[in-house]
């Protein structure tokens, strides 16, 4: 390749990635040359500033036309821009949590903690805009490998080590299954480029190929369900969430899950929607596999919500709740209405806000007590009324009560499921029923906060990073709950992601 072609590429499209990468490099070098006894916490501010600049840069790219550079391996279309905004916002909030993370035994690798979070974020961003299986996989692994280390960053804590080990092993298995599925579609199409794949699979009308394609579809669905922690790969979530440091838990439940949905949508819509289906309704393979996704979505909602009823540990409770939310999001995917990506985007936006906010408060109370039992929430209202009210807002939003962003998100997905022809009534019914079940455990926490007497009278003071997170999240949750049109205006600029396949 000559210098000419090299300069022809619109490298400016990669500005957000470059910013995050350079921030991570600067942090790692700064961490190495800082004296050992110096406090590493200021590094987190650099990281937050870097991510916020990347967020602004991504927002600046919104009006740009869809481009793909580096031989179609890196795509900037409205889909990648929209979801990059989400992962960057989630990443910045998680970094604010990490800034004020104070485990009981101290954190000896604080520098690594911050720049590994940035590396994981970079992986998620690459996943959002990759147009090739190789880039997609590299992004996926960058995110996964960084998260494995992050889960075990408390080196002396047995729980943290356990969670890292479990995460590595189940993650390895899931990756193997994903790769196996990818190998089938590569074998059938002979290319790793998603656009060319979409073109090649159209020719595979032979019924023998149909079975192989369906097999590839199921393997990919099962393998990728690890990243979004849905059935059948949900078992790692409670253990890993409980053992990992709280900012990492928040990161896994928000950024990692968003990235999982990004790769799921990108792969399935590009490749399998183009593949012809065999049978009486020959529309596309994706539509013919709709029932499998619907069953997994239903199971995810039922398992997540019912097992959560028995949890006393807050982080385990939120792990099951995050499994349940993955189920709601899968309903949006299984329905395959024309608002699918819009409703998933909005739900993930609401989910980022309410979940990170809740984790900020969990982090404050569990760091203090060195345990994440629900009992430490007792009487929070007497100890800090404002904090209790914000936690109340997050819980209401997670439960999906009107007036909060969580409600609007759920409503969009619910309407999407009924909008299609034929409507997914069964799925919508399961969604409503499990939502009602989820009220029980969300309001259980509610009762602890507002109606139980406090163990200790000392008021809870919130450090600055957590305060910023809680205020931003609570404000966003209410804002998008009362004026969802603000988010729709942002969505309107993406024009229903019509440039997805261009």
């Amino acid at each position, binding site marked *: *390749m*000559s*210098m000419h*072609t*090299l300069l022809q590429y619109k490298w400016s499209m990669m500005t957000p990635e470059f910013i995050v990468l350079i921030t991570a*490099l600067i942090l*790692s*070098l700064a961490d*190495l*040359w800082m004296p050992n006894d110096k406090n590493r916490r200021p590094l987190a501010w650099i990281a937050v500033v870097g991510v916020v600049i990347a967020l602004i840069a991504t927002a600046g790219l919104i009006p740009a036309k869809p481009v793909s550079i580096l031989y179609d391996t890196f795509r900037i279309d409205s889909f990648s821009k929209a979801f990059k905004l989400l992962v960057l916002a989630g990443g910045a909030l998680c970094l604010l949590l990490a800034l004020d993370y104070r485990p009981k035994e101290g954190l000896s690798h604080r520098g690594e903690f911050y720049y590994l979070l940035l590396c994981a974020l970079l992986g998620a961003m690459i996943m959002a805009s990759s147009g090739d299986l190789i880039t997609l996989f590299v992004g996926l692994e960058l995110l996964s490998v960084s998260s494995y280390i992050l889960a075990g960053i408390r080196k002396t804590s047995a729980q943290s080590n356990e969670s890292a080990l479990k995460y590595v092993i189940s993650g390895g298995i899931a990756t193997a299954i994903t790769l196996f599925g990818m190998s089938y579609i590569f*074998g*059938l199409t002979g290319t790793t480029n998603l656009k060319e794949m979409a073109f090649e699979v159209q020719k595979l009308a*032979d019924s*023998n*190929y149909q*079975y*192989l394609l369906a097999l590839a579809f199921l393997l990919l669905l099962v393998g990728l369900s690890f990243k979004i922690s849905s059935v059948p790969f949900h078992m790692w979530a409670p253990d890993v969430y409980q053992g990992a440091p709280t900012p990492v838990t928040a990161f896994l439940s928000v950024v990692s899950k968003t990235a999982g949905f990004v790769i799921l949508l990108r792969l399935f819509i590009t490749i399998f929607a183009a593949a012809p289906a065999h049978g009486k309704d020959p529309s596309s393979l994706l539509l013919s596999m709709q029932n499998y996704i619907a069953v997994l979505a239903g199971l995810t909602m039922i398992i997540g919500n019912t097992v959560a009823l028995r949890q006393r540990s807050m982080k385990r409770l939120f792990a099951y709740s995050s499994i349940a939310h993955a189920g709601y999001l899968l309903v949006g995917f299984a329905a395959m209405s024309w608002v699918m990506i819009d409703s998933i985007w909005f739900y993930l936006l609401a989910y980022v806000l309410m979940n990170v906010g809740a984790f900020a408060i969990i982090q404050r109370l569990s760091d203090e007590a060195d345990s994440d039992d629900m009992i430490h929430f007792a009487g929070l209202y007497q100890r800090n009324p404002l904090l209790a009210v914000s936690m109340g807002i997050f819980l209401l939003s997670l439960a999906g009560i009107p007036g909060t962003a969580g409600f609007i998100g759920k409503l969009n997905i619910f309407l999407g499921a009924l909008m299609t022809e034929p409507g997914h009534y069964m799925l919508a019914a399961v969604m409503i029923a499990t939502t009602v079940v989820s009220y029980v455990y969300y309001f259980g926490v509610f009762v602890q906060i507002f109606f139980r007497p406090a163990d200790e009278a000392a008021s809870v003071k919130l450090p600055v990073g957590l305060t910023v997170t809680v205020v931003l999240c609570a404000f966003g949750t209410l804002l998008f709950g009362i004026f969802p049109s603000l988010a729709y205006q942002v969505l309107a600029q993406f024009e229903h992601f019509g440039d997805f396949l261009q």
Partner: protein
Amino acid sequence: MGNVYANSYLIVFVFLCIGVLLPVGALTLGKLLRPHVPSEAKQTTYESGNNPFHDSRVQFQVRYYMFALLFVIFDVETVFLYPWAVAYNKLGLFALIEMLIFVLMLVLGLIYAWKKKVLQWM
């Protein structure tokens, strides 16, 4: 033509079956044919005719592990650099820049290892 892809998997499946059946069959057949007379001496660890002594578990210095890891990193670097150097004239400037980025990342890794005192034999 249509079945070439699926048929290659058929061969894999046949091999899988043979691979599972062969040891199972051979071991079962052996069990049926051989005499069964266990004795104390037969159950001792086999050490090429010598009498067994010592524990079978040997401890290695964990420090070798660090060196092995570092070695692997630079070994992989050589593996990438070599074909690039051979085809340098064809690849041109772009590959040079890519290679420089790659080496820079590895140098950062080396600096990290150095600063974390991995290179010291403590």
